[in-house]
């Protein structure tokens, strides 16, 4: 099973630390999932707060194993930049999808699902369903 292709997951935040930390948290909660490719694309290339199209494209390329890529974002320019890159056509791997999901809960659900070898539809559905998880 070592040659199994997993869905790649990209986490886009205005903050590099948030993106990295959520990636680490999701992997830890998925039982230290090392086989699922998860990449953080946080902040600008200069290390500031914001969104970098280059970092997003590089992260998506890095996690693409041919099984599709799920992109989760925080808000504002992170969402708009991913949408604009998807509209561009050739900037992101062929089967890349922006997932409508809460950032932290969605990332955990996506990684936990992807580690089972689930396909892109299942990973996207699991992340989106995280919206329905009520806390009170």
């Amino acid at each position, binding site marked *: 099973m070592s040659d199994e292709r997993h869905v790649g997951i990209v986490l886009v935040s205005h903050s590099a630390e948030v993106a990295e930390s959520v990636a680490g948290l999701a992997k830890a909660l998925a039982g230290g999932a090392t086989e699922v490719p998860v990449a953080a694309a946080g902040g600008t290339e200069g290390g500031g707060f914001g969104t970098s199209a280059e970092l997003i494209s590089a992260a998506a390329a890095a996690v693409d194993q041919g099984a599709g890529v799920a992109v989760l974002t925080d808000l504002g*320019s992170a969402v708009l*930049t991913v949408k604009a*890159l998807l509209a561009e056509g050739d900037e992101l791997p062929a089967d890349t999808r922006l997932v409508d999901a809460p950032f932290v809960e969605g990332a955990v659900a996506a990684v936990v699902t992807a580690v089972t070898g689930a396909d892109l539809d299942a990973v996207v559905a699991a992340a989106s369903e995280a919206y329905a998880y009520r806390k009170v």
Partner: protein
Amino acid sequence: MLDADFFRRWITATAASVDREAQRLTALDSAIGDADHGSNLQRGFAAVLATLEKEAPDTPGAVLSLAGRQLISTVGGASGPLYGTLLRRAGKVLGDAPEVTEAQLAEALRAGVDGVKALGGAAPGDKTMLDALIPAVDALGEGFDAARRAAESGAVETTPMQARKGRASYLGERSIGHQDPGATSSALLIAALATAAEGGSDE
């Protein structure tokens, strides 16, 4: 007819007004946003000018597509994908034609504005760049000066509006009384069309 040089002059004139007005744009953005609109657009348009210089696109469509793509890459805030989509979509509509009419430019910009609407999900009256761009595109049939006046009025008219999109929308009613930075920079972009047209008649 408008050739690639006209479109280059348009982008160059926009970059110059963004430079001139950067502090004002950032001041407007500090009232209801995150105080980076002027510097973000300055960085974006500086990168666009460098790319246009380097790659020397030779059709109107290619100038706008390249400019749009560069804005998406370098701005770092929401205005990057929004302005990038506006220009790139318009560039796509203009295709490979070496020269286009003003009517074709108007049609292309309308498609670009539709792209901005689809990307950001805003509607007229939401206190966004659309409040300057939509009246400008509607007025383009009467010439570049009419479009400039329409964009400038549209930007001023965002002051009493309550923001319903973007960072400013978190402020709710407190967003009322401030002119929208995106509508203000959109008016600069439209005003630069008239500047580009003047530049051509001197040559």
